[in-house]
């Protein structure tokens, strides 16, 4: 099968949603161990959007967000990015450090940036591990890179990869909750075109 976002059927979408669900569940568990308190999650949503609708995702193409980005390879290749809005970034840090005094406009120090990277690493790693377990495919991944900047600029990185295949992007929206501090994250899983086919074949649904 020649994979393309435009010809995914509802069955494929259900399979991808199930991967997202299990991946997010494992991610929430891993996160909960890291911060030593319960972390809940909502059922992840699978979304397909046109590039010019990007600003609707995070509330504006020029609002500040945090992006944690890494590459994976092995039986499948691609990139994965976890994006948090500014509010969720601070909520996340509060959950990790148990502090309430973090300010929106304060530049983050090395410790905080490294904590965010670690969170991104755990979340994306849990997703990739779930994907690997479900498909039996080998997946290795890189050390994460982090950037805090305008939503459009951060999202352009995964979107450009989709741009080579069409005009729409496929991504997963997840919500994590801990101690009433809500953290809304968006996970962009971007396998290469050939890798999508490999994943669907490994799951027996190609």
């Amino acid at each position, binding site marked *: 099968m020649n994979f*393309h976002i435009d010809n995914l059927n509802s069955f494929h979408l259900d399979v991808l949603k199930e991967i997202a669900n299990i991946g997010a569940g494992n991610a929430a568990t891993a996160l909960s161990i890291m911060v030593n308190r319960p972390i809940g999650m909502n059922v992840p949503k699978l979304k397909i959007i046109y*590039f*010019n*609708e*990007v*600003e609707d995702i995070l509330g*504006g*193409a*020029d609002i*500040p967000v945090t*992006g944690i*980005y890494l*590459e994976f390879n092995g039986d499948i290749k691609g*990139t994965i990015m976890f994006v948090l809005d500014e509010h969720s970034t601070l909520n996340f840090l509060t959950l990790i450090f148990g502090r309430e005094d973090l300010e929106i406009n304060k530049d983050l120090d090395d410790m905080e940036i490294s904590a965010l990277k670690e969170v991104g690493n755990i979340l994306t790693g849990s997703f990739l591990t779930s994907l690997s377990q479900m498909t039996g495919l080998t997946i290795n991944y*890189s*050390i994460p*890179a*982090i*950037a805090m*900047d*305008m*939503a*459009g*600029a*951060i*999202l*352009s*990185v995964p*979107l*450009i*990869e989709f*741009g*080579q*295949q*069409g*005009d729409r992007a496929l991504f997963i929206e997840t919500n994590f909750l801990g101690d009433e501090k809500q953290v809304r994250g968006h996970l962009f899983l971007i396998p290469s075109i050939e890798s999508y086919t490999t994943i669907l074949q490994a799951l027996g649904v190609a």
Partner: protein
Amino acid sequence: MNKTIKVGMADLNIAKSPGVLVTLGLGSCVGIALYDTETQIAGLAHIMLPSNKLIDNNQNPAKFADTATELLINLMIEKGAIRKNLVAKIAGGAQMFSFKNHNNSLLNIGERNVLATKEVLKELNIPLLAEDTGGNFGRTIEVYPRTGMLIVKTINHGIKEI
């Protein structure tokens, strides 16, 4: 009151003064602004990739430096702009993430977008008057058709006019 016309990602549009063209959050993408101050008509494209020649699925001309520039010129001329007056300013083409050792050519896509844009402008004989490109930060830009003024706004790197 200036009328603001928004240009999304992989999108383009034109405006006549007092309209103002705006595109938000350019990262590795490049904003290509063309204008003719005599007729006070400007065009802005927010491109994502260098060329449509290597891509199978290329229905959207606004996504590529080459096809977007050509389409922009045609739309501007239709609106009354004079071809020989056209000049350009560009912004964007940043590298948002850096890895120590990577082999993913997409990470330097910003740089490749800028090079491709300059190439296209040269081929089409459109002088590039100013640019604000590269770096590792996002940019929001505004284009004023009356003067060709281009304002670049960033989160941590201030505001400038080119």
